[in-house]
């Protein structure tokens, strides 16, 4: 039955060509879990920073979910474009991670372009 069930979407794996070499190691030696978690926290924040900075926020098509109904502002400009939605998603994730890193990592410095949201929407 499992094999017959239709998958919701295509594989989440990217091709080799989609790799984004960041210069940071992607294999770790056998260190304890705290050190691993610390590194993953930092590498994910760095990864999001890079995406926001390069305006590379929209994932490849096969990973996208169906678009919601368009929403327009009073000037008739669409406010929930793909770029806007995915940028917000990344900013929200980064916010959570920065909060966590600030609490748990000594000497953690938030990214230069990071602003703590004054109010959290949704």
């Amino acid at each position: 039955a499992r094999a017959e069930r239709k998958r919701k979407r295509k594989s989440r794996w990217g091709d080799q060509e989609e790799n984004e070499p960041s210069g940071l190691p992607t294999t770790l030696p056998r260190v304890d879990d705290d050190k691993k978690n610390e590194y993953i926290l930092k590498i994910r924040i760095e990864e999001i920073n890079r995406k926001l900075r390069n305006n590379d926020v929209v994932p490849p098509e096969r990973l996208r979910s169906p678009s919601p109904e368009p929403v327009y502002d009073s000037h008739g400009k669409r406010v929930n474009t793909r770029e806007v939605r995915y940028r917000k998603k990344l900013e929200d994730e980064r916010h959570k991670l920065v909060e966590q890193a600030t609490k748990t990592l000594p000497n953690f410095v938030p990214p230069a372009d990071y602003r703590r949201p004054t109010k959290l929407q949704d």
Partner: protein
Amino acid sequence: PFTGAKEDDVTNVLELMNMVVPEELEDDEEYQDIWEDIAEECGKFGQVVDMKIPRPKKGQDVPGCGSIFVRYQSKDDANAALRALAGRRFADRTVVASFIDEEKYTNDYV
């Protein structure tokens, strides 16, 4: 200041990190999808014995939740998989991989 996995770090069990966030593992169907995506890809590099993808539990701290553990038949298979998968993208996130002791795999994760 990590320098990456070395030859003497190699075991037959991989820990794959930064691929999923716990919330994605809550939904049964999404969990199944993620499981199949990973099992299919990991099988390309050697004989997979079994896998563990710990799921979040309300109000509990689940060890290894957010990581994926894959046990291979041999160290060589696991090593080949690590070299091939680390740095690849999964759901638009960069895969980070390391080796863990088989004993830890058996005892610490569900």
